[in-house]
């Protein structure tokens, strides 16, 4: 009787609200009553009655609280209630979500930047055992080919070779495409340990004598059909050997990573395994020049170190190892993983640390917002408990709301992450992204989710502790004052976020002041000076350099718009260390540590705008006799006394030379703007300057002329077409490039300082606004009995001001102590510089005052009657 469709329907509907052992008795009661009614009214009447009873039952249970429903219904109801609670106070919900999004977005962006260098492993097997080996020409005597190193199985588990990139031109989609191909051994990818599917086919073609090329994904796309696997294309290139066809092999995957910038290209071509490491050429002058044509990519045997490799392979005496293999001597090995990530790991860790600090500020902010939200919801939650909601129901309701806010915060945070990454991609120097531009990957999304959960939990705990709800106690309360523990929790959160913000602010102030000091100093030349470097490709005939240099200067002076031009032997600004030992320089027999002698045209200082400190500048008659020294040289040689009149001596090409010091000029920065300039003695160019592998011409012009660079290059080649013109540019740009690291670090620290103080300010607005809302009636009463605006302002801002002051005090002490770790980044100021601390404190006071001003102003503008109506 109770197996019909109607009974089954009723059983299902009741089953949504009740467990089976409750449904069965109800159906049994209905069945028994129905059976009695059938006897009295007949089937039809009983059926009508039963339908009415069933519908009534279902409607009654549908109106019941969610606790009686299934899990899905419960979740749906909880989400609806949570959404309603968030809509009741949209400002608080939006504030929480915004703070969350900002904090999560920033720290996730820093994770995206730091992940490739700090946490994510390189895509090579055992990347820590990969090394690049550079071999001096003299070291290759016993092992002139790659095979000679491959047999050293005591050191290497595998050895491959790679050369310099060859530039080829092929026909692409419509227009010719220039490709850079890197010659590599056929075992290159096995040694590298990169997971590349198309290797066996490539090796087979290479070993069969063909010249297959592996193209990168981007190069293949640029070539179009000509770059498809299996195509044969004709190329012309710099070398005659390439003026033939080669077979396009399989395309490398888009994710392929080059192990270094020197091994980066558009594709790979095979290198014979018996290729020689050294190439010998003969110059037109009859000189034999050897240069290393190949470098090695090697995988170390387990337990073998780089020092062991260098010691075993080099013939240079111990303790005489140059920075690079020089003059044919020395073997240097460089870890691939260290080269790719080691340099940037500290920066990545610092960025991640700064992001986590901002997240701490956000967590404290969220905690304060949750405390405020708890105040408004106490009565609601107590009422729910009185109506039958259990602790689990209330907890589930609150957690659902927390979860919705977290989801919104994480979603917004990923948007902030994408924006920050897009911004930093434009500002970050490319050499900070050797592993590619960071993006919002799955790892970053996962990190953002984890950060959201941690922040919300951290924000929830103080609120949960402070707002323990007991319905009976709440309804017995006669006072509406906040519990003491709530006020203490809010004070602690506000102080904590202010502390962290001030620490970041102190760091930002120190970095910014250092940066300003750096930019303000005199580099020794006017910043819009144009400098161009010229390299001699082939050895010059002895004595040819000076006439060439002077002729070039004369031509440059005659260019339109040029007011002055001069020459310097060597480079004006270097960003790399020298690989050779400079000759020692002496003044009155005492060695000047680190001193260098540089040959310059007599018009050099006037052209460069170098400031004269003492004595006079060089004149044409000073050739071979006089020298002008830099200020640091004068300090190093003469210990505070005048350097004028002293004798500087040095040895050049085994010839002793000397000159009398006639002037002291400002230091000329020759490495980077933040590095101590080399103590230098400047002597006029003379007939003893027979040749130079590098020459610098400096030009001063009336205004910025885009065509100047072209004109200068044209004049240089007019004198000697064989020289290579490189590295030309305005000194201002060169100087800024020399401090790119520092500029980037300053920008990031300042950005984080601003972000932290901004989030703190948002938190303060929330705290003061909460105080105003909570004490509106009190404010109204005070105003009604005569309190002035200042009194009201003091009343609402007192709590925030005290907490901020406590946090600022701790933050300044902590910031001063931690600033010692930044000493290497500072310039011209000491750690815990008092003025920086004062500026940080001053900025904080300003921000706190502004943050408190808006809600305080709202309180002041309330009329007493309006305020009383609000409550």
């Amino acid at each position, binding site marked *: 009787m109770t197996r019909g469709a109607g009974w089954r329907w009723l059983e299902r509907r009741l089953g949504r609200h009740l467990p089976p052992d409750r449904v069965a008795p*109800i*159906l*049994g*009661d209905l*069945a*028994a009553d129905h059976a009695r009614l059938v006897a009295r009214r007949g089937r039809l009447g009983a059926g009508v009655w039963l339908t009415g009873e069933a519908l009534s*039952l279902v409607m*009654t*249970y549908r109106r019941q609280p969610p606790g009686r429903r299934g899990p899905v219904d419960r979740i749906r109801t909880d989400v609806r209630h949570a959404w309603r609670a968030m809509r009741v106070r949209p400002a608080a919900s939006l504030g929480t979500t915004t703070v969350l999004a900002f904090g999560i977005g920033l720290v996730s962006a820093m994770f995206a930047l730091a992940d490739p260098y700090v946490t994510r492993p390189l895509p090579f097997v055992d990347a820590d055992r990969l090394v690049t080996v550079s071999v001096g020409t003299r070291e290759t005597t016993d092992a002139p080919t790659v095979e000679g190193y491959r047999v050293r199985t005591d050191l290497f588990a595998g050895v491959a070779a790679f050369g310099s990139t060859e530039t080829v031109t092929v026909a692409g989609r419509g227009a010719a495409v220039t490709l850079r191909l890197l010659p590599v051994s056929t075992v290159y990818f096995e040694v590298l340990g990169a997971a590349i599917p198309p290797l066996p086919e490539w090796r087979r073609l290479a070993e069969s004598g063909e010249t297959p090329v592996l193209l990168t994904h981007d190069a293949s796309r640029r070539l179009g059909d000509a770059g498809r696997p299996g195509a044969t294309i004709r190329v012309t290139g710099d070398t005659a050997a390439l003026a033939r066809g080669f077979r396009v092999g399989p395309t490398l995957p888009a994710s392929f990573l080059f192990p270094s910038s020197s091994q980066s290209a558009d594709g790979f071509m095979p290198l014979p395994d018996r290729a020689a490491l050294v190439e010998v050429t003969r110059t037109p002058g009859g000189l034999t020049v050897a240069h290393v044509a190949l470098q090695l990519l090697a995988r170390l045997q387990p337990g073998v170190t780089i020092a062991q490799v260098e010691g075993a392979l080099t013939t240079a005496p111990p303790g005489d190892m140059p920075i690079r293999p020089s003059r044919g001597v020395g073997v240097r090995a460089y870890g691939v993983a260290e080269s790719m990530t080691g340099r940037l790991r500290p920066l990545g860790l610092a960025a991640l640390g700064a992001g986590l600090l901002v997240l701490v500020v956000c967590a404290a902010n969220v905690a304060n917002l949750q405390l405020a939200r708890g105040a408004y919801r106490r009565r609601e939650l107590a009422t729910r408990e*009185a109506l039958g909601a259990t602790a689990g129901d209330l907890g589930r309701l609150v957690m659902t709301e927390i979860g919705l806010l977290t989801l919104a915060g994480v979603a917004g945070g990923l948007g902030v992450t994408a924006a920050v990454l897009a911004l930093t991609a434009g500002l970050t120097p490319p050499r900070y992204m050797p592993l590619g531009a960071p993006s919002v990957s799955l790892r970053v999304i996962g990190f953002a989710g984890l950060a959201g959960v941690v922040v919300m939990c951290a924000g929830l705990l103080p609120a949960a502790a402070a707002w323990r709800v007991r319905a009976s106690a709440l309804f017995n309360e006669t006072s509406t004052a906040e519990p003491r523990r709530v006020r203490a929790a809010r004070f602690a959160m506000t102080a904590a976020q202010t502390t962290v913000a001030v620490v970041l602010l102190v760091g930002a102030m120190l970095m910014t002041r250092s940066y300003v000091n750096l930019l303000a100093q005199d580099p020794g030349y006017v910043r819009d000076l144009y400098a161009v470097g010229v390299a001699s490709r082939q050895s010059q005939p002895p004595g040819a350099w000076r006439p060439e240099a002077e002729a070039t200067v004369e031509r440059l002076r005659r260019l339109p718009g040029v007011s002055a031009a001069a020459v310097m032997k060597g480079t004006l600004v270097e960003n790399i260390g020298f690989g050779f030992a400079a000759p020692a320089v002496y003044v009155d027999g005492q060695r000047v540590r680190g001193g260098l002698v540089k040959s310059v045209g007599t018009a050099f200082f006037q052209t460069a705008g170098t400031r004269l400190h003492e004595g006079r500048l060089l004149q044409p008659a000073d050739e071979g006799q006089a020298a002008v020294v830099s200020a640091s040289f004068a300090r190093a040689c003469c210990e505070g006394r005048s350097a004028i009149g002293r004798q500087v001596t040095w040895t050049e090409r085994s010839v002793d030379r000397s000159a009398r010091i006639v002037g002291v000029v400002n230091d000329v920065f020759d490495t980077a703007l933040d590095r101590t300039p080399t103590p230098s003695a400047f002597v006029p160019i003379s007939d003893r300057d027979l040749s130079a592998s590098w020459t610098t011409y400096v030009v001063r012009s009336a205004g910025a002329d885009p065509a100047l660079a072209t004109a200068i290059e044209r004049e240089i080649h007019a004198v000697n077409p064989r020289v290579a013109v490189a590295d030309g540019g305005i000194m201002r740009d060169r100087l800024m490039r020399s401090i790119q690291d520092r500029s980037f670090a300053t920008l990031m620290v300042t950005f984080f300082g601003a972000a932290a103080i901004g989030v703190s300010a948002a938190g303060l607005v929330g705290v003061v606004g909460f105080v105003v809302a909570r004490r509106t009636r009190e404010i109204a009463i005070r105003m009604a009995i005569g309190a002035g605006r200042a009194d009201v302002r003091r009343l609402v801002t007192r709590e925030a001001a005290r907490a901020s002051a406590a946090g600022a005090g701790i933050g300044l002490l902590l910031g001063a102590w931690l600033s010692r770790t930044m000493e290497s980044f500072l310039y011209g100021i000491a750690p815990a510089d008092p003025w920086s601390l004062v500026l940080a404190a001053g900025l904080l006071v300003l921000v706190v005052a502004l943050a408190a001003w808006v809600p305080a102003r709202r309180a002041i503008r309330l009329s007493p009657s309006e305020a009383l109506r609000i409550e």
Partner: protein
Amino acid sequence: MGVHGPLGEFEIVVLMAVLHRQAEDEAFGSAIREDIEQRSGRRVSRGSIYITLDRLEEKGLLTSRLGDPEPRRAGRPKRLFRVTAPGRRAVKHSLALLTRMHAGLEPILGDLR
């Protein structure tokens, strides 16, 4: 007053109906509803009976057990209720309150039957 606060009117009625029926071990949903309708003279919805019984059980004022399956109930058991000691105290307290409130109102309210 007790931990659970004052009882509603319908809750007292249901408890008293259970007290009436539990002596015969017949305090189940339909019987309780029938008892209330007979004594009060008003119709009571089935759903409100079951919901109130469940609520009273959650408050600890009633206990229930499942009886044996019966053929005339399509093989489904009865759910038999009993009033607990706290339930008895709650009923007595509520009735005593009404009695105290009623004292002195006889001239106004007259005979309550």
